[in-house]
């Protein structure tokens, strides 16, 4: 089965051009660059910290902000990111390190979006842990220490 057909589909380059062009005229851009450039620079100060992805998964498991099905989905997504990083550190080059970082960021965005209005404490911990966790994950030595 092929990809879902689009109504009024146009060449991909036209869509990409539209997206890029929207960037120059969209309301977010007009509001100012700095709003976006300052990501994660003002994480809320909260008690407790998340020191690894397993601890984050445990926090999600105990949070009332996320439903059971969503918990399973996020746990699977966390495990998949760990598996891909494990493969990378073992020498596989299916994904580059920048690609893995993007996948990690998107996973964290996915989790942050689920928590941000429902579990302020865990969301704050996640925000504070976002960069340190990646720092550990990308380092082969520290990664192997945690996941071997």
């Amino acid at each position: 089965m092929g990809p879902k057909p689009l109504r009024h589909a146009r060449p991909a380059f036209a869509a990409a051009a539209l997206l890029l062009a929207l960037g120059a005229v969209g309301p977010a851009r007009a509001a100012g660059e700095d709003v976006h450039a300052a990501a994660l620079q003002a994480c809320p100060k909260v008690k407790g910290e998340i020191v690894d992805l397993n601890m984050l998964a445990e926090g999600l498991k105990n949070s009332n902000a996320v439903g059971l099905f969503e918990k399973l989905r996020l746990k699977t997504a966390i495990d998949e990111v760990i598996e891909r990083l494990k493969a990378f550190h073992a020498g596989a080059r299916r994904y580059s390190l920048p690609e893995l970082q993007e996948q990690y960021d998107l996973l964290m965005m996915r989790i942050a979006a689920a928590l941000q209005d429902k579990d302020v404490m865990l969301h704050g911990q996640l925000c504070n842990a976002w960069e340190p966790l990646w720092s550990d994950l990308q380092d082969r030595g520290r990664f192997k220490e945690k996941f071997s």
Partner: protein
Amino acid sequence: MSALPMPAGLARACAGALLAVGLAACQTPPAVSLPHHVLVRAYLADLVDMQGFACASVVEHVRLRRLDYQVLCDSGRAYRVWVDAEGRVNVEPLVGSLRAEPLPLSAQPQASAPV
């Protein structure tokens, strides 16, 4: 000819096996080795959808910088998805859609450094 009754232990084992197979079949297929852009678009579609904007799938995306994207959904609607200073994920509809005429490529934003 009458069938022999199945021992209770065997019946339980069969039921357990069927349940395990059923659960395994219901699980999401592993996304461990999908192409990178497919993974990215799946996450972005989820993020747009979670904020209350219908987006079954993302057909195009542009990464403006780290934690900041523009996406085009299969509906033809475009959104900006970004993380703010407090770590909150925001989704904002952008003007225009696939039905609108694309603006010239000369209007592309300048590439910027990651956060």
